[in-house]
């Protein structure tokens, strides 16, 4: 059982944030701007995986269709741009709203099922959204929708610069992680975890379990939508791959790898998986073999994800509460 209190771990998080702030100038100094782009990508996936971790780890809802919200956010920005709306101040909230709305519809129906059936019904809805966007030939169909450029922010901030974009992404991801941390420790988060542990008991003491879970599902969808907004700006392409079930699977793998129900589980999972891909693919074309072996090792030696290793060494971190 995880303890109910999830610390933001300021002693680890603040130095990490400082390092991340110092990262671009260092990379520019040693003339490796590529790593700034890679770091941006990792940050975006850390946000997407964290939103899925909110559903799985705190809400107890294993969704296999999270890419639907990620992709909806991305496509909303792309489609609005085709119609001349390139302001981030309009397109980004609209995209988050669209993802939240999709999550509301899908969640309202799916939450009537449980366990494996919930996994499969979320997959079913995500596939419907995938084929829907693929069928929109006016917006790229199979090939995806190429953007004219990144969104316009104004105030002299130009997202076209990779460094500026990196800082915008970093600010958004850091802010949202802090908010998520606050939320899971607040009344809503505690009630949500009570529902996860025992739905009947939570209902018996007066928490409307269904509504709490739906609210969590919508919130997770909205945050995934925001991650989608960022990835479409990073890639300047809204690709159907963002909506594919493999994408949902990758997000799921990141969460399990990092540690389900740990506040930074999604972050660590995204970091490790994307770095593994990046490093191993430099050495061999058969890098997937290595990734597979390492994932297997994690399953065998760190059954509850990488963060459970850190926790095992400091048993005092696991509180008496539980």
């Amino acid at each position, binding site marked *: 059982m995880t303890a109910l209190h999830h610390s933001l771990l300021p002693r680890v998080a603040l130095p990490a944030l400082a390092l991340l702030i110092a990262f671009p100038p260092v990379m520019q100094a040693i003339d490796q701007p590529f790593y700034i782009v890679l770091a941006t990508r990792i940050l975006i996936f850390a946000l997407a995986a964290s939103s899925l971790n909110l559903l799985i780890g705190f809400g107890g809802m294993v969704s296999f269709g999270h890419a639907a919200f990620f992709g909806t956010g991305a496509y909303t920005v792309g489609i609005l741009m085709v119609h001349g709306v390139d302001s981030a101040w309009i397109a980004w909230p609209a995209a988050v709203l669209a993802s939240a709305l999709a999550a509301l519809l899908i969640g309202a129906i799916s939450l009537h099922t449980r366990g494996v059936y919930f996994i499969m019904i979320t997959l*079913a809805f995500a*596939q419907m959204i995938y084929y829907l966007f693929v069928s929109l030939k006016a917006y790229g169909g199979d090939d995806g929708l190429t953007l004219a450029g990144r969104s316009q922010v104004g105030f002299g901030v130009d997202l076209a610069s990779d460094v500026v974009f990196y800082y915008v992404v970093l600010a958004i991801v850091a802010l949202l992680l802090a908010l998520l941390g606050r939320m899971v420790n607040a009344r809503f988060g505690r009630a949500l975890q009570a529902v996860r542990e025992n739905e009947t008991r939570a209902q018996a003491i007066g928490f409307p379990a269904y509504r709490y879970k739906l609210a969590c599902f919508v919130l997770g969808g909205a945050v995934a939508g925001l991650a989608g907004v960022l990835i479409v700006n990073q890639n300047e392409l809204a690709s159907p791959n963002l909506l594919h079930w*493999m994408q949902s699977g990758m997000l799921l793998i990141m969460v399990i790898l990092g540690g389900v129900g740990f506040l930074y589980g999604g972050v660590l999972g995204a970091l490790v998986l994307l770095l593994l891909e990046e490093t191993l693919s430099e050495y061999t074309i058969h890098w997937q073999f290595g990734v597979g072996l390492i994932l297997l090792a994690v399953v065998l030696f760190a059954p509850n994800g990488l963060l459970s290793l850190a926790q095992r060494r400091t048993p005092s971190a696991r509180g008496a509460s539980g």
Partner: protein
Amino acid sequence: MDLILLLEQTLNGLQFGLMLFLLAAGLTLVFGIMDMINLAHGSLYMVGAYLAATLIGYTGSFTLALLGALAGTALFGAALEVSLLRTLYQRDHLTQVLATFALILIINEGTRMIWGSQALLLNAPDALSGPVELLPGLTYPAYRLLIIGVGLAVAAALYLLVTHTRIGMLVRAGASNREMALTMGVNVKRLFTAVFAAGAALSALAGVLLGPLLAVQVGMGESILILAFVVIVIGGIGSVRGALVGALLVGFVDTLGRTLLPMSLRTVLPPQVASNLGPALASILIYVLMAAVLFWRPQGLFPARG
């Protein structure tokens, strides 16, 4: 409506449904009895097809290659079960997802190392390459008829095995209440390995039979795996009968949807819109079917757990 076309598409639907059943049967039993989500089931399908494509080069006989591939894949499946998957039965579903996803990566990449990334050619037997005239005006490829025949025979044999034999009884007991079967003295270790090997052989059979129709390539397992999961969820996890009904349902709905939907859309919409919308709606159909089944029957059509 063109009756000949409709008949032809019905046969195609039957053929697709039966192949899905071969995959889904093993998947649903492993899921139902061992309580294990095996994402790597599609990899066994791929291994079967690759083995057959290789063996046919050595033996020149499709039948020998088929039998060799079945035996090889069953052995491979049993080895996987004994060495690794066995330790995962007691773990939670998410751990199983991560572990079997890792297996997909390893098996896919291993296949690429051995056979390269080019798609392999697996030819149907020459004797069956031509069409057969079933009815005046209705010709149908002989090889596809063979697939339907084999599919029907295996489905019938499996049904008899599961419902009328002692082994089948143990399997059903395991699926409906694992702990009780254990208590009653079923040798579960051996049963689990046998079920896993049989499931591997069945999915290899689907892989070999579909090989000449689709490309034998890395990644072929994943696209069909999702459909197999759809099938077992519609049918009810752990139920072989449910897997058969679910597979045929998905096969017919998908195949007929792809032909009939664009045609009927064309009568109400401009052709341009219809040709764009038709295929997408047809792909969506089976997922709508699954969502609808789960909404009204949250345990699938034939729940195995009593």
